[in-house]
């Protein structure tokens, strides 16, 4: 079996770690295991090591020649660095990334802080959607007075840039 890090020497160190019920495995050769500090339990987290490796392989499995239109980053670059090129890359490489993020994190959806301006826009979007729904119902029910009122409300919101 080959070493997962250098891909050349024979692997002699086999590691398995269970983090929150998820099993992670890695095979290393003597030299790489030393270099990664496997012997030192205080300075070593298998997850950190796997992030660099697994991430790139995951991306590779998905379609072959993706390239970010904004910054020109390719999946080969990702494989090399384990980092992305710009914020737009997340949308470009979304297929490969989503599986990887699932293994890496507690969840797949952000539930924490959001920029206030964005939160407002988000809240407004929801309000608009609700008004449109109500308007549709009002029209179907032929309640034209209510519909006109709703239409005005929507216009007022949309008038604000």
């Amino acid at each position, binding site marked *: 079996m080959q070493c997962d890090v250098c891909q050349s020497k024979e692997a002699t160190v086999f590691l398995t*770690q*269970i*983090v*929150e019920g998820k099993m992670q495995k890695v095979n290393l050769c003597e030299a790489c295991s030393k270099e990664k*500090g496997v012997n*030192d*339990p*205080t*300075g070593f*987290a298998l*997850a*950190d090591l796997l*992030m660099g490796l697994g*991430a790139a392989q995951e991306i590779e499995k998905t379609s072959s020649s993706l390239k970010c239109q*904004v*910054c020109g*980053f390719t999946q080969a*670059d990702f494989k090399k*660095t*384990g*980092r*992305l*090129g*710009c*914020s*737009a890359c*997340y*949308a470009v490489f979304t297929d490969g*990334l989503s599986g*990887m*993020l699932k293994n*890496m*994190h*507690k*969840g*797949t*959806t*952000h*539930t*924490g*802080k*959001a*920029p*206030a*301006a*964005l939160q407002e826009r*988000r809240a407004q979007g929801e309000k608009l959607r609700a008004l449109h729904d109500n308007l549709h119902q009002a029209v179907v029910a032929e309640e034209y007075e209510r519909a006109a009122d709703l239409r005005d409300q929507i216009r007022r919101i949309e008038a604000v840039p």
Partner: protein
Amino acid sequence: MKFSRIIASTGEWLSGDGPHRNIVVSSRVRLARNLHEKPFPGWAKKAERLDVMRLVKDAVENLPEMADSYSENLEALSPLEKQVLVERHLISREHAAKGVGSAVVMNSPQTLSVMINEEDHLRMQAICCGLQLDMVFGMINRVDSELENLLEYAFDPTLGYLTACPTNVGTGMRASAMLHLPGLVMSDQINKIVNSVNKIGLAVRGLHGEGTEAIGNLFQVSNQTTLGETEAEIIGRLNRVIEQVLEHEQNARALLANRKSITLHDQIGRAYGILSHAYSMSSKEALNLLSIIKLGVDLGVFPEPCRFPVDELFIETQPAHLQKGAETQKMSADERDSLRAAIIRAKLSSVKEPDIAHLQAQTEDPAEEKHDE
């Protein structure tokens, strides 16, 4: 503000006070932020990095929190000055390796620092002493909320804040506490604790973060994941775990004092003896021995006023701080070791011999004996 002023004062996180100060050296929260559709620093060309730096630096310098700030481009700092900032945990080792196109801005109490163009466009952190992660998060969160009005952040409604490395995506937050755990190390329980903390998705690392050795019995506990939980949930989880570790450390210390009192007295006495009589000392040896003296202060073997000078030595004996104090540009390792030993000797000359009788009096307490059975 001049660099010399940074050097002159030790920074609030070392000299201040906070809950569980004896065991929790410092609490730190770092947020990673990037600008919308601008290439991340690792991928950006020099001109793009400079553009981002100017934009971000301008915004950060004008924050009310940064009214009296120190702000510098990294290429303007000497390797020694960068290392001083690393030893104070004000910039990361990765950031110290950067040059043109990167910068750092920090406030005068050295509790807030913003790294510009590290791995992400912005890495901002707040640091304070003792266990107060919630307070520290509040500090950096305010800075972040002010900056989001001035800069267009890369944010996705599903993935949260977008970062160069997928390991930071979501909250972009890394909260960590530096713990001093000599009791768990001396009683051989540390590996067990490290492993169980790792199992619940938190990371334990050495003095200077990822991939560094645990010297001086100092360990950093931090969250490993950033997506799927709110900032408050992550910090709550971390707080609960740290409190558990604190309890284990306190138990380990009590047990050592009761059952292995001779070993403990011996270690404290030897550490004191070597530190006050050595003429050459490596930074690693110094930290390991100072850790034992710090434990001695916690146990009342050394009087409480010794705490600050001992804590200060943890920073002052680091390689760059030594050289900065000596004001010579280049020193050999041997010269540093002998200077280090001299500084320690001078400082410890005001610290009286360990009062082992104080420890013995504690361990002979009959209530403790009964508890021991």
